[in-house]
């Protein structure tokens, strides 16, 4: 799932300088689940903006809405009426949602309230960790289901860097596990340690990969 975090309030506020009527729109999918941009957070941000404006006597009218999935045109369409009433939009969706809104309503500036960080999963209440970097060339077969591209701080593809700390911790961030230690242990458990010998070629970044596009076969 896409994980995002809300930007600092001052940053969001500064984007809105000069605007008097705005729409804060949340998304009911990934960012609701990772507690960053759902209906609740829309309410909180709107409340903060009102408190901040009242404090300095600024005029600010805020409309609130939450779209089920902000990356679907049909769903974004539903807030059309509210969009027409405002000068600018603050989107609390991931980067995809923000851009969908921006594409749909080209006449209105759309500002991001979140920083989209990674694809990840919950580790505990309120904690999400990165698991996938969307590299487009999945190698999880070779690494026992643990991705070195994003879980190794250096993104090494052929084993640890040699700086692994005691307890299997990463040289760069001792709070984190060394991904290659995890991979080794996992393959050992599965009796597939021979896979460690596989040499993985460096990823080919020459081929134009961005912006990505996928054409699926018939549904």
């Amino acid at each position, binding site marked *: 799932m896409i994980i995002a975090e809300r930007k600092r*309030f001052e940053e969001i506020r500064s984007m809105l300088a000069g605007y008097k009527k705005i729409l804060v729109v949340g998304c009911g999918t990934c960012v609701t689940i990772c507690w960053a941009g759902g209906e609740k957070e829309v309410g*909180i941000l709107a409340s903060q903006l*009102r*408190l*901040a404006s*009242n*404090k300095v006597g600024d005029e600010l009218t805020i409309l609130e809405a939450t779209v089920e999935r902000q990356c679907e045109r049909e769903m974004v369409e539903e807030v059309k009426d509210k969009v027409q009433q405002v000068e600018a939009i603050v989107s609390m969706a991931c980067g995809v949602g923000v851009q969908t809104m921006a594409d749909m309503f080209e006449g209105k500036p759309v500002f991001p309230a979140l920083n989209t960080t990674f694809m990840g999963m919950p580790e505990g209440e309120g904690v999400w960790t990165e698991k996938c970097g969307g590299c487009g060339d999945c190698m999880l077969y070779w690494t026992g289901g643990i991705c070195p591209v994003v879980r190794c701080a250096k993104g090494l593809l052929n084993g640890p860097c040699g700086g692994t700390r005691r307890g299997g911790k990463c040289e760069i961030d001792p709070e984190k596990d060394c991904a290659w230690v995890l991979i080794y242990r996992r393959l050992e458990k599965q009796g597939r340690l021979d896979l460690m010998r596989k040499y993985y070629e460096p990823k080919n970044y020459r081929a134009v990969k961005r912006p990505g596009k996928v054409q699926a076969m018939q549904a």
Partner: protein
Amino acid sequence: MSVGRDNRIIAFCCEKSAYLAADRAGRMRLCYPDNVRIIRVPCAGRVGTLHILRAFEEGAAGVLVMGCQEGACQHLTGNLRARDRVRYAAALLREVGMDGERVKMVNLAPDTAEKFVRAVKDMAEEIKER
């Protein structure tokens, strides 16, 4: 003890502890400022961050979230969640340029009427000074 719109202290009181303590304070005829408005909740964990912020939007000068003592919540984690939300709300208030001390978490037992009164009076003082 003046009564003005901007002087209100909203006290979200858990019905198992703080609400009972407030009742007891009344039975003991302990006096406290009249700008306190008690909102009864089944558990301090029912109080959300948004409730706290909206209280300020409606003109409250201070907010107290009052629940059971840690370890004694019938719903196990209600008062712990409330404490974390109060901390979060205080941070959100500071982000907006308001004083984070205006919202506080108070833990008490159902018979500690004096503690209830003390908490309310402390918040009233806090507000006066700012």
